[in-house]
């Protein structure tokens, strides 16, 4: 089930978001749920949680979803050091 409000997302945006959250917010490989569909529900909430964490850091509306303002921040050039404990 795609994350709420993200039906319009391009696959490359989801891919970018997953890499971003893995690099800067400690999203685990397993959290991505791409290998074990039965874990998909849990992975979606793990992803949503990480998106909320990132939205909180950048002062965005904490929707848990990959809305356009969240994606545009993810596409900005930045430092490679994670934003949360690393």
């Amino acid at each position, binding site marked *: 089930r795609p994350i709420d409000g993200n039906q319009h997302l391009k696959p490359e945006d989801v891919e970018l978001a997953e890499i971003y959250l893995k690099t800067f917010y400690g999203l685990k490989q397993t959290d991505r749920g791409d290998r074990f569909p039965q874990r998909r529900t849990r992975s979606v909430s793990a992803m949503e949680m990480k998106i909320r964490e990132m939205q909180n*850091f950048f002062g965005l509306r904490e929707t848990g979803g990959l809305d356009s303002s969240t994606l545009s921040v993810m596409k900005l*050039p*930045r*430092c*490679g*050091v994670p*934003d949360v*404990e*690393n």
Partner: protein
Amino acid sequence: FGFYPFKPKWKNHNVTYKIAKYTPDMSKEDVEKAFHSALKMWREAAPLRFTQVTSGNADIVLTFARKTHGDFFPFDGPGGVLAHAFQPGERMGGDVHFDEDETWTAGNQGYNLFAVAAHELGHSLGLSHSKDRSAIMYPNYRYRSSTQHTLSKDDMLGIQMLYGKPNQKVEIQSTAPQNCDPDFSFDAAAIIDDSIVLLKNRHMWMRTINGSYWNQLTEGLIKTYLPGINDRIDAAYDIPSKGEAYIFTGQKYWVVEKLKSRSRVGSIQDYGLPSRVTHIDAAVHISEQGKTVFFTGPFYYRFDEVKRQLEYSYPRLIQRNSRGLPRRVDAAFRIHGSIFLLSGPKSYQYDLKQKRVVKIIPGNSWLGC
């Protein structure tokens, strides 16, 4: 502001750094200048000292690399991640890696190296990312030349939580130039009354041409030696045959015949310089040619002292035929068959016969450092 877990920091406040690799996008000088400026900003906010080493180990090693480069964080090509750094610690601790797939610049065409280095060095000192958009430690790239050279309150508080405030004595001294500071640079230089005179802010050093003892004069004494010249001095040159020195402050120049005597004043327009030239960076007279060279920005002009007019086909780029010359000149003076050009922390010896730079030494070695 934020810290790494367990708040790692450098126990020894004398931190060494080494530039292991440069980027082909910029001149070595500009890369070093960007790193010096970034370190200077942190040094002014906390009791830290940075010493550059060129071989052996260093606390902080700065380098440029692309894609997979020996740590667990491969770069991602142009855009995206620009650089990363490691928290204070042994071996890779403190190191900074810049993504060579980016275009690095001293300006804003591409990613400004100073801006990114200032951020990454914050990590090398123990700071993690800040949520404060005005902070250097904010994770996303921003470059606004006007405000970029200052730490935000947030950065200041963060670094002082780790290392404390800059100790008072350093603050007081910061008005007096730190002669042997690796960043030390000069404002002007000339031969006056048979002495090499070097000037910085309102401080003046004098040494007889063949002597070796420097006599640092405090501001009060400058007023004695150069009465009436109260502004910061930009440039100076001398014409030995006339026994006169010319001191430039902004659009004015002062003709000094004898130290401690009052001087005549004129405008740099008297030299026929275009109105866009608002000040002179450096000047030096070449007696066998009867010409005076004026340096301003990356250009230089030549003035014929006999005809009292600027020569045609000028200005020219200082680095026009490279010859090892720096991009800009802060001060210049002539001894025997060489012109010494002081640029940033370096002194370039230009041999008039060979028409090229024959030696480069640290500028403050003229002060015995």
